[in-house]
């Protein structure tokens, strides 16, 4: 087992193509033990393909994955002893009950009966599923299914947990339960890799890899990614955000415009210089008295800024 702080996962030059499509292009990263490492990117960025190769269910074309000292390509079955993988699509048996699914995965990983009992009790209660043990998995809500997936993934003691968009389509309460379990795991030294399309979730990761077109564009902690964002970010509340965006795009000094609900985020090269200019500009386009204030960038702003406007909407 890797010592604390040492790389639990090392990925180097990993590539995978499907016919003409280069799904993953020569990516590389290290994940330390106890980290929550996030893969962030739009649909088709290559998150699932990367996860599948990490989980040793998909053979890479090129590159190396070492998980906890085990070369995954050379010894996939050995690596699987210490992995838990939750695929993007619900992967449990819908015609089995909650307890039956847990029993099945516990047996596959050789978990003792007493350990299974105590673990499932604890995990089910953390997931708020205790009263659903006899229910068929197919009759659970989307959020409950994902939590059951996590329970089954954690019924043995994995060293590395791989979660592919685990909270997509999950209600806020279930998401909170879900993250509470993840934080607990991190405390106990489990290394977690998760992919997500939610920016607020990305923000909770210890480090992020921004994936686009199969390549890692940036990889750092959320705060340093924010610092590395060029320019300054301004927020403008707007009754007609789309109209305001159209008024701002392409104007001098404006590096990017992003809709954030009822506000517009504008990235400019120099805040002090541009704020008066923007006031004047907006007046002229029928937005008098706009309140323009500097704001802290979220990961979404960083994402758009670093990957370019192409993936903004």
């Amino acid at each position, binding site marked *: 087992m890797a010592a604390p702080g040492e790389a639990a996962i090392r990925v180097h030059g990993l590539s995978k193509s499907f016919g003409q499509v280069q799904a993953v292009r020569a990516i590389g990263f290290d994940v330390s033990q106890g980290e929550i490492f996030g893969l962030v990117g739009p649909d088709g960025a290559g998150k699932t393909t990367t996860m599948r190769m990490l989980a040793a269910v998909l053979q890479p074309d090129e590159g190396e994955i070492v998980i906890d000292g085990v070369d995954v390509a050379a010894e996939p079955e050995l690596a699987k002893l210490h992995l838990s*993988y939750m695929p993007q699509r*619900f992967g*449990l*048996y819908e*015609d089995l009950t909650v307890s*039956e699914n847990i*029993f*099945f995965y516990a047996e596959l*990983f050789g978990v003792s009966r007493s350990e299974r009992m105590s673990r499932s009790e604890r995990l089910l209660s953390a997931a708020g599923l205790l009263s659903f043990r006899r229910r068929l998995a197919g009759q659970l809500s989307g959020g409950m299914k994902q939590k059951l997936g996590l329970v089954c993934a954690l019924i043995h003691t994995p060293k590395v947990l791989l979660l592919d968009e685990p909270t997509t389509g999950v209600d806020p309460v279930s998401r909170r339960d879900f993250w509470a379990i993840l934080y607990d795991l991190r405390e106990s030294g489990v290394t977690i890799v998760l992919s997500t399309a939610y920016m607020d979730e990305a923000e909770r990761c210890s480090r992020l890899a921004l994936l686009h077109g199969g390549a890692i564009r940036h990889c750092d902690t959320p705060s340093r990614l924010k610092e590395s964002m060029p320019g300054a970010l301004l927020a403008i509340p707007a009754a007609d955000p789309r109209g305001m965006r159209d008024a701002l795009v392409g104007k001098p000094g404006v590096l990017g415009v992003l809709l954030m609900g009822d506000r517009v985020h504008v990235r400019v090269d120099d805040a002090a210089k541009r704020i008066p200019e923007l006031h004047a500009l907006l007046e002229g386009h029928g937005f008098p008295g706009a309140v323009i204030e500097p704001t802290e960038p979220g990961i979404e702003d960083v994402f758009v800024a670093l990957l370019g406007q192409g993936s903004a909407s």
Partner: protein
Amino acid sequence: MNLRRLLAMAFKETLQVWRDPRSLAVALLMPLMQMAILGYGVSLDIKHVPLCVYDQENSQASRAIVDRFVSSGWFSVGHVISRESGIRYAMDRGECIAAIVIPVNFSRTLAASGSAPVQAIFDATDVNTTNIALGYAQGVVAQANAAVAAQWNSAHAAQPSLVGQTEIEPSVWFNETLDSRYFIVPGVVAVILALVGAQLTSLTISREWERGTMEQLISTPITALEVMLGKLIPYFVIGMADATFCLAVAIFWFSVPFRGSVGTLFVTTALFNVVVLGIGYLISVRIRSQLGASQVALLVTMLPTTLLSGYTFPIDQMPAPIRALTFFVYPRYYVTILRAIFLKGSGLADLWAPLLGLSLYAAAIIWLAARAFRKRL
């Protein structure tokens, strides 16, 4: 190999079959329905074969022969014909499929030599029916011969040995009453087991792909061999239960005489089940949709099994190339074995040839199946 993982897989699969109406229907209803449909419907047991009689002599002796045909219950005389061409005419119109021609000097020849020819003509459009009718006719003639011989013996008490040599042996063995059902029903059992078994296992791997459970399954330490064995165990139990049911119906409902031993039946049936389930599993590994897999399984088992297993169409009457082809049709071995166990009471030693064929088949299928499934997307 890890027994715990294997048993977990077997248990999970059992639960799934139990909760899947489609699998349950295939496992429980299909044997019942097919036993009824094939056992009765395809039964080639023909009663009252329409018979034309061209009695050129019309003597007491010739009428006695005709009476024997009628009283056997297998034939009914539709037409009494007075010209040779009438036979052709009646057959063309479908009024009879068999005809007997009794020559003018029948009783004279019989009295003089103790034997006389009777010509039997069959419409062989339907080879099966013809075979069976021919068997019946031979049976009737054999009985007549026995009677005539007895008469002749008492009349010519001085030379009994001569007659003993000219008597015709009945050429039909093991199925003395010539009841075709005895012949067909064991074949039906083989066909049902082949169909049902392959149908069930054809769903087992494709179901995991189709429902999206495969990706998570192959991310666990379970081995390909454990997946295969764990999945096949429940279907083996179902297959043996279906076999028990079908064989019991054959014995107790269709009254097929059972002369062999239950042990021989069990061993050979188990071997056959291994082949059948292995083939369904192979198909399931290759085709990732349940519908596709079950249709391929149907096609792959149905046609060869019904046409080339010898269960209705006798293999020794097939053209040589097709006969050679039947060696690749695994049910042919089991059909042969079942008939031999049922009607001849054969033991394992007697059955070495078809058992060898079936064993080689089983070994090949298991070898292929164990290698077919890969834990990869």
